């Protein structure tokens, strides 16, 4: 167990290092950052002084070292566009993304799991058919398009919810549904097939033969064992929700990290972009690590491997 967790932890560190290196290389490949800070009227002297301030006079490996040292202390420099420390901007935007992610995740579980159980228990019924349609749309419709369609129908046509932005409590509904639908579909499929497998097993047959009522069989005997595949998937889900927020936040003008990343990207605001990418990776890696721990806790086969 310990060995396993140490390995996962080291992997998380390596991942962070790799991402920081990629991001650093890309920011240098894109050209001298002084072109963004200085205008045509600045002198050669300004140029050189700026170079010293930003550490551009040093060789690349030292520059990366400086970048890493700052990053470890949570210092990514100043955002070009906002003129404030990157960390400040990121912290300001993070809650919106975390909220959206949490609501979407809950939505995907609350819709996906019950629907999965129902369609496995009542295989071939109307519920099963409905579940299939939900899953089919969720796994095939591109989220950005789904979001736009939901927005057009529920916000523009019916006026039930605000079309974009983060104002009232109900403005989160459309973004959360858009973001969560895919994972609801995936959860549903996973729970359904896991339930079908378990329901077919010997010990369920035995329980039935003993006369245990079917409610107990489904909830106690079958469901608990059918939870492992969706749980594994939860790790991927949490990570992917972070990435999915890029698209959904752009569609719904949701003031979170995803939109911030896109804004920074198109404004060539590299310090900000570096900060956001590292933050995303950190969220991603942390989520994956937590799930690894949970998973080892639930499935003894991993603990003792």
């Amino acid at each position, binding site marked *: 167990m310990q060995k396993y967790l140490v390995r996962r932890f080291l*992997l*998380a560190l*390596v*991942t962070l290092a*790799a*991402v920081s290196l*990629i*991001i650093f290389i*890309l920011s240098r*490949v*894109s050209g001298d950052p002084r072109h963004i800070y200085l205008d045509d009227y600045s002198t050669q002297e300004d140029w050189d002084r700026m170079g010293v301030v930003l550490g551009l006079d040093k060789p690349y490996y030292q520059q990366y070292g400086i970048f890493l040292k700052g990053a470890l202390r949570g210092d990514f420099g100043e955002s070009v566009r906002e003129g404030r420390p990157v960390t400040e901007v990121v912290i300001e935007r993070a809650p919106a993304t975390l909220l959206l992610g949490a609501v979407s995740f809950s939505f995907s579980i609350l819709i996906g799991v019950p629907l999965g159980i129902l369609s496995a228990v009542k295989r071939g019924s109307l519920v099963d058919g409905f579940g299939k349609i939900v899953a*089919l*749309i969720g*796994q*095939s*419709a*591109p*989220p*950005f*398009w*789904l979001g*736009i*369609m939901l*927005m*057009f129908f529920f916000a*523009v046509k019916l006026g039930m919810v605000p*079309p974009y932005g983060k104002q009232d409590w109900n403005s989160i509904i459309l973004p959360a549904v858009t973001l969560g639908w895919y994972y609801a579909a995936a959860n549903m*499929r996973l729970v359904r*097939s896991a339930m079908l497998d378990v329901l077919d097993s010997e010990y369920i047959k035995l329980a039935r033969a003993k006369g245990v009522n079917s409610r107990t069989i489904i909830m106690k005997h079958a469901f608990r064992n059918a939870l492992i595949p969706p749980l594994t998937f939860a790790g*991927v889900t949490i*990570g992917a929700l*972070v*990435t999915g927020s*890029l*698209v959904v936040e*752009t*569609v719904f003008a949701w003031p979170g990290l995803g939109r911030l*990343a*896109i804004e920074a*990207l*198109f404004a*060539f605001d590299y310090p900000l*972009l570096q900060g*956001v*990418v590292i933050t*995303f*990776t950190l969220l*991603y*890696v942390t989520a*994956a690590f937590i799930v690894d721990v949970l998973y080892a806790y639930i499935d003894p086969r991993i603990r003792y491997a």
Partner: protein
Amino acid sequence: MAADLSGIVITPPTRRAKAAGVYRKIKRLPILPLFVLGLVVVCGVFAPWIAPHDPESGDLRERNIPPAWSNGETKVKVVVERMTISERTTSVTLSDAREVDPNIQLGNNIEVFVRPAGSTKFLLGTDHLGRDVLSRVIYGARISILVSVVTLVVGGSIGVTMGLMAGWYGGIVDEFLMRLVDIKLAIPLILIALVLVITLGQSLWIIVTVLCLFIWPRFARQVRGEVLQLKNMDYVSLAKVSGASTARILFIHIFPGTINTLIVVATLQVGIVILLESTLSFLGAGVPPPTPAWGSMVADGRDKLAGGVWWISTFPGVAIMLTVMSLNWFGDWLRDTLDPRLRQLE
């Protein structure tokens, strides 16, 4: 104890029963997805002959025309001498009104077309630049096909080679390659992809490169698993004993054994590639405009929705959804047919 069969008369199947048999066989084929995929491929390959209009240029006078089946929208407006911006939705100027009805007077009411009716000239309507949406959707299939084929061939080959090596050599090589896979799974790749595309410039080849980075690990993992099983087979040992080179064993003896799995993985991956490509296009990091790509078309229509112009975004999105849906459906079918073991995996 033998059963008594004497009373059973075996009759040859009737024509109807034969037809039912054929029908049952066809029913098992995924007709609908195959039809959709066929349509997409035909559209992509023969776009210049099928598309009714030029996808990249349009007449601004014909912009925002709705699909053929929709009626025009009219509104009664008051004729005024001059109007302020706030009155624009309720009134119309005298000079404009005279063009419709020369006898109109100030203060009269007049029925005006807010939106023209759809025409059969543009079956799915036109976009904000007067370009035919149908033609753009048809041409959009080209980009999707091109990108997925190239990505699949290049990314798939890389993944397969990596997987073969990892499975065959084991040890450090395996460890290194699989950690690479883990890292890939742990970074927000779409963000990195966006940074890459914006930094290095928008072009088809950069997008393909980025997408290859996305898909190779899936192939590598799958092939590695297969190799681990196959490499202990007797026929592989036999090849080794008879002096076959490692490359020969890997590509001639082991690789063919993985093909069934690969076909399934590839089909399911194409759907993912199409979704990713359209997402990049939507975010403005796809194939540069004016080349029609489904994702960027959805983005084009986004801010027109509030004005009720829904068709620009809707149709390309439907195209993406139907294509991906068909690929998933077809992939599931292939999996069940070629390799039932895989059913456990997803």
